[in-house]
């Protein structure tokens, strides 16, 4: 389950980076919460924090360079998916991010750290 939590955090990071990009919008619709530059900066910072946490969590189950590779590979793969899906199904994207983030935190609270 640690692997799933890491993937969910990287997915949330990819969605936040997508939302903070000025050009990621469907028509003229954009997520209200990320309209202002300050909020977009905050989203990018939160995404960076999630990436660091994901790497830290993975390091608890696999040593060596693996955590770095997993964060990079995860951002590449999930970033691609988010960029392609985001313009077609933004609600699905953001709902998934909120649900995934919440579930991952809940899981860690229940099961504890590996």
């Amino acid at each position, binding site marked *: 389950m640690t692997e799933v939590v890491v993937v969910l955090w990287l997915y949330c990071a990819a969605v936040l980076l997508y939302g903070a990009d000025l050009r990621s919008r469907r028509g003229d619709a954009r997520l209200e919460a990320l309209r202002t530059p300050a909020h977009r900066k905050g989203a990018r910072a939160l995404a960076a924090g999630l990436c660091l946490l994901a790497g830290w969590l993975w390091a608890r189950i696999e040593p*060596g360079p*693996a955590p770095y*590779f997993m964060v990079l*590979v995860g951002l590449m793969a999930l970033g*691609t998916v988010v*960029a*392609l899906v985001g313009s077609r199904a933004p609600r699905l994207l953001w709902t998934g991010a909120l649900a995934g983030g919440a579930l991952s935190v809940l899981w860690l609270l229940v099961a504890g750290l590996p």
Partner: protein
Amino acid sequence: MSWKLSRHAFRRFWDVHAWAGVITSLLVYVMFVLGSLVLFYPQLARWEEPLRQGPPPPMASLQQPLAVANALPEEFYYYLPRHDQGLPKLGYYLPGTTSWREWWLDPVAMRELPARERAAAFLYDLHYLWHDVTGFWLQYGAGVLVFGFLLAIVTGVLIHLKDLSRQLHQFRPERGPRVAWSDLHKVAGVFGLPFQLVYALTGTLMALAPLLFALSVAPVFGGDERAAVQTAGALIDDLPPLDYGPPAAPLPLDVLVASARAAEPRLTPESFVFRGYGRRDGTVDVRGPIAGHAFGAGLVQVGVHSARVLGIETPERETAVGGVARFIHGLHTVEYGGLTARWLMFVLAVAGCATILSGNWVWLERRQARASGFGNVLLARLTAGVGAGTLFAVAALFLSSRILPMDWEGRTRAEEYVLAGSFLGSLAWGACSSNSARTWWTLLGGAGLLLLPIPVLATRHSQLGLLGSGARDPSVAAVDVAMWIAAALLLGLAWRIRAQARPAGSQLSESARLRGTADELLARNRP
């Protein structure tokens, strides 16, 4: 600082990117598709061969299964059961050839069984264009071709540099095919850039390693092959013929492994490579993971006659070449991250395929506005034939692997003919079809239909799958599920392409559409 290139530089890099991409695209696409499947080679190999599905047999010693073998050549590979599954295995090249043979060794029943199912291994070898019929030349050609792909990647980055961040998340499928393919090409290409770069580089080096080694012996080592071999370490598997001295009885494998583990206690032996077996100076490479090192494996070389440790390659002791080889191999074969990493890599591989195909479609759409000749018509048809045909051929291979009798001697060759025939047939279908969309939906739909019955047919060979009567094996059942998911996705995609294709009444020939002249449009639609 401006990332904008001069007009002249932009035009030159654009031309190089376009031509390098078009020339290398279809072959690299096939390698990416097969590579994406090979990510799950252990699961596919276990699914296809029932002999891998049971628990390993009790073995009195590591040497015991070798006693079952009819004859042991001087050079052979011996594999212990991995992940608590299956039988020990023996593998070797027929002397003087590139023909690989494998045998299962059953120490309980005291029998040697020829490997009878190699569909997954066939895809693995084909991924880098290796086959025992064609030998290494095709593999070397693939390695050289991927340099062209690297050139396309680098020039693509250069021409797109100024727009990299601005268009990173830009995907506008509602703006028509030309914009959609261009956006898809850029999004998938930029996000997957590190992946495509690393795989192109590592793949090229792995494919060309035997050739580069052979070419380096004279200028770097003054012709001393033994010194070259010792320096190359695990980088080179296929060594040049060496003189291993007069005949001498080898020590039992358990003694040799004990010697290896005394030198490196962290090593868990998984496989052995014997060279000069039965000779005084013969050696065995004891290979396996090093505990505490998640990336890369270790190797201890021991003399088979003396049990003397001749060399150790572990992450902290390896030569510079060995370290580079370990990283190249480990990165390319995803020796980290478990199944999670492999699924993420699968997504990137699919995105890589989309990058390649969309590049061809961008090329074709740009030239649709100008005059279009035979070359563009051919590219359009080949892109469809190869693009969809690869998936159709792989589906046909998996179906044949479940249909053909497991104990039929000719099944492995028959499977290869099925794959080759399906692929060539798809190519011919695409070349003859005047409508690429029709080629896509017929072949994708065909692939989906071929995959549908596979989990049912799999019960003929094993009861441990999704629909079997025995206790489900997770890997075997997962492959059955994956077959059905893939079938559903392919059929859904085929249906969508067909629905979006032009209505039959105004369907134009591909050449007319690409020429785009008003007169031809009117002439072909005249009642």
